[in-house]
């Protein structure tokens, strides 16, 4: 697309100075999703900043995430194993989503639906692994109001941040399935299938958030 960034910074003033639409070629739904994601960025950032604050101010030792989140494999603890698998799972789902968007714009409805469903599947797997992780941690004694290893905010932040992210993933899975179903029924046949890109934006955002959670919660 020649309308791309290559067109230069001068387009900023043209676009913002024009009538009818400011974001040229961006459908209403896509504009709305972008703005929503911007707002959601503020929500997740505020969660992460709160986590940073209570962690730095904590006078009790902060439990070591890489030990807490280790799985025993072949008799030896492997740090963050499950988290790594979850990360790869989410990236996989992002890839399938990107393909779905691509096929959507090629008007290859069947393939688009197939890849959306694959994305939803990987998302559901992610939620399942998260449920497993929560169960394991709770049974090991990590509760939102305390744990055995140190600052009680560790558990509180963990459950809150991953829980909020997990809710986004779950909502995303439902959203994906609804879109796939409506696509199948032909609801969007008169449009350009931009709905696939819109749901894709949401899904990639969920993956994006995980990148930050992984770095700041599990690796710090």
């Amino acid at each position, binding site marked *: 697309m020649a309308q791309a960034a290559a067109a230069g910074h001068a387009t900023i003033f043209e676009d913002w100075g*024009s009538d*009818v639409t400011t974001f040229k070629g961006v459908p209403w739904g896509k504009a*709305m999703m972008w703005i929503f994601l911007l707002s959601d960025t503020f929500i997740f950032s*505020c969660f992460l900043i*709160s986590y940073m604050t209570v962690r730095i101010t904590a006078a009790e030792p902060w439990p070591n995430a890489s030990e807490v989140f280790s799985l025993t494999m072949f008799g030896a603890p492997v740090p963050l194993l499950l988290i790594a698998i979850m990360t790869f799972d989410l990236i996989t789902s992002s890839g399938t989503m990107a393909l779905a968007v691509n096929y959507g714009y090629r008007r290859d409805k069947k393939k688009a639906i197939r890849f959306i469903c694959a994305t939803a599947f990987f998302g559901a797997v992610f939620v399942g692994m998260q449920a497993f992780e929560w169960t394991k941690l709770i049974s090991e004694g990590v509760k939102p109001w305390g744990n055995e290893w140190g600052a*009680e905010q560790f558990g*509180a932040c963990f459950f809150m941040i991953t829980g909020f992210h997990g809710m986004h993933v779950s909502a995303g899975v439902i959203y994906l399935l609804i879109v796939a179903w409506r696509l199948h029924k032909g609801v969007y046949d008169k449009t350009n299938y931009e709905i696939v890109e819109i749901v894709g934006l949401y899904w990639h955002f969920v993956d994006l958030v995980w990148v930050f959670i992984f770095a700041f919660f599990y690796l710090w």
Partner: protein
Amino acid sequence: MAQAEIPYQEAMPLHHPHSWVTKYWFSQDHKVIAVQYGITAMAVGLIALLASLLMRTQIGFPGAIEWITPDRYYQAVTMHGMIMVIYLLTAFLLGSFGNYLIPLMLGARDMVFPFVNMISYHVYLLSVVILLASFFVPGGPTGAGWTLYPPQAILTGTPGADWGIITMLLSLAVFIVAFTMGGLNYITTILQARTRGMTLMRMPLSVWGIFAATVLGLLAFPALFVSAVMMILDQVIGTSFFMPAIASSFEPSASEYSGGSPLLFQHLFWFFGHPEVYIVALPAFGVVSDLISVHARKNIFGYRMMVWAIVWIGVLSFVVWAHHMYVAGMHPYFGFFFATTTLIIAVPTAIKVYNWTLTLWRANIRFTVPMLFAIAFVITFVVGGLTGLFLGNVIVDVPLSDTYFVVAHFHMVMGVSPILVIFGGIYHWYPKITGRMLNDTVGKLHFWITAVGTYVIYFPMHYLGFVGVPRRYYHNEPLGESAFYPASAELLNQGISIAAFIVGAAQLLFVYNLFVSYWRGRPAGDNPWEACSLEWRTPQTPPIHGNWSDTLPTVHRWAYDYSVPGEKEDFIPQDVPHRA
């Protein structure tokens, strides 16, 4: 290209109502939703008004009504503040004015997603219901002050620390969901659904104010949402985000908390709270600019500066939040940073004031009721804005913070001022909404009592603050020979309370006027104020669903072509082409 894109909007599917329910209750028409928002906000605002009268009774005449116990007093303080800021001002200025004006002023058929818009109102209604439910839960509503500072908000030394605070936070979270749905619609409509010729720099300032405020809302409410979630967790399941180790003689179970940070809540709250001030102020700025221009029959002075001032105020509002926390025990060096940013924001704000007054210069002022309210707004806002310089200048804030000076300041600047604009706006647009004029005599009576009364209430209050009378005191009786509450101050408080009762009662005139004029008002015609902006150019008054006839209007000029030299009429509407 414009021609290529506009059919996208003209072909917009409109869900025309099929029954009473879809016409008035589950309507997808932005104009109906605006009225729904407005009525709900005003109804809940009356509760806030009652709460304030209870407070004034106790402050002016301590013990006169025994029913007002300290618990009830603090609950009234809290509910008054929260309802006014969130459920009345934010909801009215954005939900009602925003919904009504954006599509009409931009020449759009409706909001871009009418269904989401409709849901937005009903979620807002739900948040109001949850809020009102807090009056009936065990322990009553929260009495933590509208800032809801932990730890006290969730410890038993505060009224409503169990159910009251939970319903309050829940209601806020629901409100934020409602606002987000509405706000996404407003922004997308403004950016992507204007009519031909409507560039951003031709938009009326009302839309600019609402636009900037909505952007602020979408970026600031997340901080409140996050703190509400964390405080609910602290209260319900015993996490310690905001709760440090505590030794409370009232609540032994509080000793289960440890390591949290009360300052974190305050930072998050004001990271939301300060933009919130501008969420209320910017739409008011915009609307009042339009009112002044229309009724002074003169273009708004310095339109481009006005727009940039709105934008800069919006941007800066995100880096000034901690001026609410100068004496909150935050990092002492923050004072330098925040005092500087805060006083910088005074410059664009002052420019707006200059431009309003300069619009009056060599104008042709018609003293209609909306204009009266607009002028009263400017002088009230000048007082409120200038006292803001006291509180923003960090060291000056030290003796004045948490005294009646603060109460007087924020009531002037974000209580009375925006409400005067809301009144002005309603008197101005009521003819468009209903097709009838509001009664002028009742309107003027309402104006004079409100304008004079509020000044009498809040101007002297600053001086109580200088004396050192702290705010949020159930009663002020000094323990000994204390200078902070001389007998004369008690007299002053009685006078203020009496003025408050009169102003409170006068609002019934307004409600009366709204109702009676709906049936009995003089028919308004299409454009009673002879205004230029697009909302007065609809084919029908009140506008029908879909607003326009088969084609959308085309805009040729800005919204302020009043008294253009060489023209016969003293106003040229936006969709009139330039002469060849």
